[in-house]
């Protein structure tokens, strides 16, 4: 079993209204040093061992998890710790 962690972020250049709102809020709390805030997604998957895990996860990201028009993604694969 593998644990896959997928990080999805908006592409550079794509306006992030949520990020802007967070930045404004942080400024109003006195954190003037915040120059930019971008919001993304974090997805955890547990997948059966597969010889092409990386390739399969890439396909999952391209087909569903991320929208390549506006988003970039990266992922990490590690041995899942059984609980």
């Amino acid at each position, binding site marked *: 079993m593998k644990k896959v962690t997928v990080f999805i972020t908006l592409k550079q250049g*794509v*306006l*992030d*209204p*949520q990020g802007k*709102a967070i930045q404004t809020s942080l400024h109003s709390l006195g954190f003037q040093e915040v120059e930019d805030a971008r919001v993304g997604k974090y997805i955890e998957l547990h997948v059966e061992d597969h010889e092409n895990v990386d390739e399969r996860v890439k396909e999952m990201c391209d*087909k*569903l*998890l991320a*929208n390549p*028009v*506006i988003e970039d993604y990266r992922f990490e694969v590690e041995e899942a710790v059984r609980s």
Partner: protein
Amino acid sequence: MKFAVIVFPGSNCDRDMYHAVKDVLGEEAELVWYENSNLENYDAILLPGGFSYGDYLRSGSVAATSDVMKQIKEHAAKGKPVLGVCNGFQILLEAGLLPGAMLRNKNLAFMCHQEALRVANNTTIFTQSYAENEVVRFPIAHGEGNYYCDEETLNELKQHHQIVFTYENNPNGSTSDIAGIINKQGNVLGLMPHPERAVEAIIGSDDGLKVFQSIVRNWRESHVANV
């Protein structure tokens, strides 16, 4: 003419769409549940607004992977009309039937009011009943209607006259004031504002009726006239 209104879990404008076509226009229409559906015998497909699958992951992304989309793609490939409104537009984008993507509205608010739109292309099968550059009023109701595409796609949209409706007073931050676009073949239209909620003057506007009348007129001209 026979319309299919596709119903996903979370669709909520399906009955408005059905009412516009069936009751106001007097055409045949059926509500078609997305599972185990057969779209072969329909002349046009309508993807209604709402929150399919609760807008999980990204608006329209889950519906775009459903089996019924394969049939809708086949239907579109045959040149038959497909109209996606609001969430229906988001589904068409996620399914790759139209280029671009939707972002959150610039002001982060869900907006629900009437907007003035310009008919930027009145030569499509969805807009041929409108005058050139006619300004119409449709309601909008969305939180993610901020249309985005890269420069290259935008140039292509302009070059092929694929921008069909634009906002007069851009409410959501959409690139180039885009409210609705059509595919290159000219048979798949995605539109963020709701023409199906503007089909009776007594409830505010009947400016949207011509979208459906255009579809029917075009279909009659190419089918009935030849019989």
